[in-house]
């Protein structure tokens, strides 16, 4: 046997020896690690947004449960509870942006010398939304790929300045936008909003599961439109059912961060662009939002310095 052949044999034998000497479980582990390594190369890397300390996401799975209304009021409540904090609000609902109307903001954002969009500000909150970039009646009829690049622009090509909290109002569903945001940005916590109806809870559960899949911590559930009190006779009606969200929270082992009742003034103030936390801070509704903001801050991890 030549030297080359004997070295070759030695290599083969030692390779076989090594693999035989590994137990099957540690071999599986090695395989698993290698697979994870290869898979992770393909996934987008999470990059924090410049200037933003913590990102808070408001989602639900179901449409029309009050995400935008809550996002606006919670952002204002976070600022009201602690006036030293700077808060920003991003409307990630590309198809149905509600934030401009609720924050009474209109117009195209200016560009900074660095070619970043300057967020529009009202009530001390810096806002960015697709609604500022399109006409009021123009629909956004885009497939997922374009939506992803739009969301990326709304996240990173904005001059947010220095923010303690960036509240992201998510669209309904568990699709492209939710995935893109969760995969590209480190999220400090997610809050799920739901009404008490079973139909809404079914989707809220899917929303919570989606966040678990992408490893985003869910801070808790907010029960919206919990009960309606007739302004005339004070009789209480549970129009959308009672306490369903509390039961869901228990089954998912999540905290209920708060209950928001159905009040005409919440809708009226949002429609007129003067959210209830700012325009009627003594009302029950405003107090509910302020309490929820406090509970959220309690559950967020300590922000980086």
């Amino acid at each position: 046997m030549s030297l080359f052949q004997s070295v070759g044999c030695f290599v083969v034998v030692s390779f076989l020896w090594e693999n035989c000497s590994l137990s099957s479980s540690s071999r599986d582990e090695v395989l698993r690690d290698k697979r994870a390594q290869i898979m992770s190369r393909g996934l987008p890397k999470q990059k924090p947004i410049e200037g933003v300390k913590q990102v808070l996401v408001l989602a639900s799975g179901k449409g029309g449960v009050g995400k935008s209304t809550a996002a606006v009021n919670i952002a204002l409540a976070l600022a009201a509870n602690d006036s030293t904090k700077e808060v920003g609000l991003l409307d990630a609902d590309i198809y149905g942006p509600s934030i401009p109307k609720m924050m009474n903001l209109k117009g195209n954002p200016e560009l900074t010398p660095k070619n970043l969009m300057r967020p529009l500000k009202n009530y001390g909150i810096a806002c960015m939304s697709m609604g500022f970039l399109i006409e009021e009646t123009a629909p956004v009829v885009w497939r997922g790929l374009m939506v992803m690049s739009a969301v990326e622009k709304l996240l990173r090509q904005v001059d947010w300045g220095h923010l303690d909290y960036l509240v992201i109002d998510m669209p309904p569903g568990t699709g492209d936008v939710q995935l893109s945001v969760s995969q590209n940005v480190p999220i400090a916590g997610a809050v799920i909003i739901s009404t008490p109806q079973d139909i809404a809870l079914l989707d809220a559960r899917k929303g919570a599961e989606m966040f678990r899949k992408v490893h985003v911590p869910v801070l808790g559930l907010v029960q919206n439109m919990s009960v309606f009190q007739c302004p005339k006779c004070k009789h209480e009606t549970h129009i959308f059912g009672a306490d369903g969200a509390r039961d869901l929270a228990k089954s998912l082992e999540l905290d209920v961060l708060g209950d928001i009742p159905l009040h005409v003034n919440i809708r009226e103030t949002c429609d007129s662009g003067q959210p209830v936390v700012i325009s009627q801070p003594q009302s029950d509704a405003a107090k509910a939002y302020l309490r929820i903001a406090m509970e959220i801050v309690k559950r967020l991890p300590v922000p980086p310095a």
Partner: protein
Amino acid sequence: AERSNLAGVQHVLLVLSGKGGVGKSTVATELALALRLAGKRVGILDVDLCGPSIPRMFRVQDSAVHQCDSGWVPVFAHQDKSISLMSIGFLLEKPDDAVVWRGPKKNALIKQFVSDVAWGELDFLIVDTPPGTSDEHISTVEALRPHKPLGAILVTTPQAVSVGDVRRELTFCKKTGLRVLGIIENMSGFICPHCSECTNIFSKGGGEELAKHAGVPFLGSVPLDPQLSQSLEDGRDFIQEFPKSSAFPALAHIAQQILDGTSPRSS
């Protein structure tokens, strides 16, 4: 040529809204029940892949879909096979499983839903959509185009943020050549069961004004009715069981307008 699975369907109706949570699935369900009461054979295609509500509203969420020679067999909501349903809810292993898909996968499934479900002979196929104007909508309209859908019913709540989104949806319909059959204003006012005082929780009149402004028919205002929400939770037939409830007259009137609009006219 092979007979398409939609060849036996007389009329295809889409229920759209730019806004979420305004009651699209509710309207689709109640319309189907009302048309069934009028003796029609109805099918509902639920293309909301992330939040399929239709199986729950008929209390058949645990049913499974079977295959036949021409494709998937729709799930029947009642023994008499008068309402057939197809939804991703029936294809999930557990009803709580989340469908976290990107656009291309959703498009593929929607194409299959349109072409591979053996609907058989139907008078109406109602398509329940998710909110927005995205992949699902583009794919559904494209897939249904050869079957010449009758048109779209737009649902809104009266408040300004809803009306704003539905205005966008109207433009979407115009751009895609989808005829707008009319606008429904849902959750229009709440009548206290105790003192009968009407409170406009979500405002009032926004949908009607939008219809007038856009020159499309206004199909009616449906009030907030806790009995309607409850019967949907329980999967009951609201149209048959609660004819005296506050939402019934409006829903019956809407169904009548659809029937009138599709009745054979003598030339």
